[in-house]
C-alpha cells in the first residue's frame, strides 16, 4: 500500500460515509428550509427505512421482544434487496405524507421548541415500539447479491463493491432531487416559498400541496438512507437517533435549505470522520465533526452555502 492508495481509500470510504449523511441531510434541509419545520423525527424515518428494508429483504430470526414472546420466530418476507431498494422509498414517502398531514401541519405556526418536542417524542415512540416488538439486539443486514464482494480498483486494489454502490445510488438520487428543484414548476414554487411563503400565497398559489410533496421526498430519502446504510452496519433501534445529530450538523454546515450545501457538508463530515478513524484517531472522530461544525459556523454563521437571510 502506498500513501496515495491510503489517501484514495480514505477518500472513497469518506464519500461513502458522507453519502449517508447527504441522503439524510438533503431531506432534513429542504424540510427545514421550505417548511421551516424542525424535524427531530427524521432519524426515525431512517430507522423505519432500515427495518422496512430488513423486513422486505430477508427473514430475520427473532430471539426476544414481544413478537418472539408471541411465538413469531422470524421477521420478514424475503423479497430480496432490490425489492427493498424500490419499495422502501415509496412506503416511507407515504409515511412522510401522513406525518406532514397529521403531525407537522398543525405545528408550522408554532415555535421551534414545540416542533422539536413533538417530533422528538414521535422519534422515541417509533424507536421504543420497534425495540418492544422486535427486541433490541442488532441484526445484520444482508448485502445485495449484485453488489457483494470486492471490486479491484486501480491504485487502491480491492474495495467493497457495495460501498461504491452507496455512493452511486446517493449521487443519482441527489441529482434527481436537485433537477426537480431547479428545473420544474414544482421546484420554482418551492424555491419561492422558501424565500417568501407569504408572498407566494398572496399571489394566489396554494402551497399546501407542494409542501406535502417536499415532506414526502425528504422522508423517502431518509428511508433510502436506512436501506443503503443497513448493510454497512448492523440495524438496531438506536440507529435513528445516532444518525440524527450528524444529519443536523450537515444541514447547518451546508446552509439551511441548500441541496448543494448538504452535499458538500455531508462529504466533508464523512471524509473527516473516516480520515480520523483510519489514521488511528477513532476516539477523536466524534469530536472532529463537532469541531468542524464549530469552525464553519464561527466563520460563516449561515453555513457554507447558506444565504445571508435565513431561518433562525
Amino acid at each position, binding site marked *: 500500500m502506498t500513501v496515495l492508495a491510503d489517501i484514495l481509500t480514505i477518500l472513497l470510504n469518506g464519500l461513502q460515509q458522507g453519502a449517508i449523511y447527504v441522503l439524510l441531510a438533503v431531506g432534513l434541509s429542504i424540510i427545514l428550509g421550505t417548511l421551516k419545520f424542525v424535524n427531530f423525527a427524521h432519524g426515525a424515518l431512517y430507522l423505519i427505512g432500515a427495518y422496512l428494508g430488513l423486513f422486505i429483504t430477508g427473514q430475520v430470526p427473532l430471539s426476544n421482544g414481544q413478537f418472539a414472546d408471541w411465538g413469531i420466530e422470524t421477521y420478514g418476507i424475503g423479497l430480496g434487496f432490490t425489492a427493498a431498494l424500490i419499495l422502501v422509498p415509496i412506503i416511507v414517502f407515504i409515511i412522510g405524507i401522513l406525518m406532514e398531514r397529521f403531525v407537522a401541519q398543525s405545528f408550522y405556526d408554532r415555535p421551534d421548541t414545540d416542533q422539536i418536542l413533538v417530533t422528538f417524542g414521535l422519534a422515541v415512540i417509533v424507536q421504543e415500539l420497534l425495540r418492544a416488538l422486535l427486541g433490541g439486539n442488532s441484526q445484520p443486514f444482508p448485502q445485495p447479491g449484485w453488489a457483494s464482494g470486492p471490486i479491484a480498483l486501480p491504485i487502491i486494489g480491492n474495495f467493497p463493491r457495495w460501498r461504491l454502490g452507496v455512493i452511486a445510488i446517493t449521487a443519482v438520487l441527489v441529482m434527481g432531487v436537485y433537477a426537480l428543484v431547479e428545473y420544474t*414548476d*414544482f421546484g*420554482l414554487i418551492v424555491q419561492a416559498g422558501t424565500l*417568501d411563503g407569504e408572498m407566494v400565497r398572496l399571489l394566489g398559489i*396554494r402551497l399546501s400541496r407542494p409542501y406535502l410533496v417536499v415532506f414526502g421526498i425528504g422522508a423517502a430519502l431518509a428511508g433510502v438512507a436506512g436501506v443503503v446504510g443497513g448493510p454497512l452496519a448492523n440495524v438496531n433501534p438506536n440507529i435513528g437517533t445516532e444518525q440524527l445529530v450528524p444529519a443536523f450538523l450537515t444541514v447547518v454546515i451546508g446552509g439551511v435549505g441548500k441541496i448543494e450545501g448538504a452535499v458538500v457538508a455531508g462529504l466533508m463530515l464523512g471524509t473527516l470522520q473516516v480520515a480520523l478513524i483510519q489514521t488511528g484517531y477513532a476516539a477523536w472522530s466524534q469530536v472532529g465533526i463537532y469541531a468542524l461544525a464549530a469552525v464553519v459556523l464561527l466563520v460563516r454563521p449561515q453555513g457554507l452555502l447558506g444565504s445571508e437571510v435565513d431561518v433562525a
Partner: protein
Amino acid sequence: MTLLQTEQLTKQFGGLTAVDEVNMEVEQGEGVSLIGPNGAGKSTFINLVTRRLEPSHGDISFKGESIVGMDPHQVVQEGMSKSFQTASIFPELSVKENATIAALAAEHGSFRFNFFRHRNSYPAVDELADDVLRSVGLYGEREAQADSLDYGNKRRLELGIALAAEPDMLLMDEPTAGMSPDETQSTVDLIKRVKEELDLTFLLVEHDMEIVFDISDRIVVLNRGSVIAAGTPEEVQNDPAVQEAYLGGVEE
C-alpha cells in the same frame, strides 16, 4: 361596468374615524387616483379594499359581488392585484423566474395537474412571463438576478408580477416612492403605456400631483376620511374645496 364600488365605507380606530362613509366607484378601463393630504385616510381605504382591514360598517363590492368577508388572497384571485409599497420580489431568483412564478399563479394557482413538468414546457406560462417582462421593459434583463436590478427596475418587476396575474384591476400604492426623477418619469410612462396596451383599470394612491394629473382619468380627493371632491383632473384642479384642503398648508 362598475368594477369596484364602496358604499358608506367606514373605518373607525377607537374614537378616530379614518374613513368616513366613503362612496366611490371605479369603472372598467378607468384610471382613478385617490389623493389627499397626509392622514386623509388613503392607506386605510386601500387596506379596506384589499381586505387587510375589516370595515366598521359599509360595503365593498368587486365586479358586483360583496368582498367583505373574503380573505386577502381570495380578493387577488377575484382579479384585484396590488403593487405593493415595499418592493415585493423574490430577490434571489432571476427576473424571468420572478415573472414565471406570477404567471404560474395566474394560470395554475392550485397546482392540481402537471405538477412535475419542466418549467419551460408549458407555453402559456412561459409566454405570459415573457409578455409581462416585455411590457414592463425588463425582457432584456430576464436572466439577471432580481436583487441586482436598480431600484427603479425592481419596482418595474414588481409591477410586472402584479400584471402577470392578469388582474381586472390593479391597485398601486405610491408606485414612484423613493425613485429618482428619471425613474419616476419612466415609471409614469410605463403605467400610461400599460394602461393603453392592456386596457388596464387602476386605482392609484400617490402624493405627487404632477403624476396624478398626468395619468388619471378621474381623481377622488379625500380629506379627513371623507370625499371632498371627485371628477376629471381639470375639475378637481379648479375645485375650491381641494385648493383649500391642500393650500390650507397640511402638505404639498
